[in-house]
């Protein structure tokens, strides 16, 4: 089942503006510390990292741990340098991978 992601980036910005980027992705973020009804340990299943590239150059990277709440919400900032594409890449346990893109116009 593909994960649904939501990116919030201003569509337009002036060169040099510092813009806020908000990311939200659906994921259970199973900690690996919980037990099921029969006492069995539920294995860990989390997103372990998120990175963002702005026209190919990495501008942000983060490592996530079980302490991050389900449906990870991560926000950060970047300088609007030029028009182009922001590419987001999530990686997680059990081969999880997701990508999303957002375009920005910088004038």
């Amino acid at each position, binding site marked *: 089942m593909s994960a649904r992601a939501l990116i919030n980036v201003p569509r337009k910005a002036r060169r040099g503006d510092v*813009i806020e980027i908000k990311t939200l992705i659906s994921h259970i973020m199973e900690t690996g510390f919980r037990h099921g009804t029969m006492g069995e340990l539920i294995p860990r299943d989390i997103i372990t990292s998120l990175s963002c590239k702005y026209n190919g150059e990495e501008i*942000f*990277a983060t*490592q996530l*741990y079980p*302490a*991050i709440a389900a449906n990870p919400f991560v926000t950060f900032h*970047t*300088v609007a340098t030029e028009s182009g594409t922001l590419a987001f890449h999530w990686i997680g346990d059990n081969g999880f991978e997701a990508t999303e893109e957002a375009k920005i116009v910088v004038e």
Partner: protein
Amino acid sequence: MDGFDITRREALIAGGLAAAGAASLASPPVAASTPGQMEHAIRSLIGEAEVRKGKVTLDLPPLVENGNTVPLTVIVDSPMTKADHVKAIHVVNEKNPQANVISVQLGPRAGKAHVSTRVRLAGTQTLTAIAEMSDGTYWSDSQEVIVTLAACLEDLI
């Protein structure tokens, strides 16, 4: 006048015991926190470097409605220029089964050292945010958060 057959006090005690009972039945911790885990985690991340208080603001609500989803923001006072910027931010906790919360790599392209996310807290505890600066210095801020349990716990079924 009150309409309660049993006293409110009795109902709350019964509810509290039942809730505590349900909590311990539903999720016995396999790995509780270890004393000093926060300090240990900090050392694992940054070695023996000195950590100074200041420049960093760790923002969490002092009292949270639910420990499952707690908004957390870290802001570091830095011009974020090539010469002077925040390279990384680490957040660690003291009472979760695992001490690391999040680590973030930034650079001059960030414009602002201001990140936020939502975290899970296993109970009332202190968190610490550490910023690694481009000049090799480390700065930190800590905050205690009070976490209450939801009043009516759901069965796992």
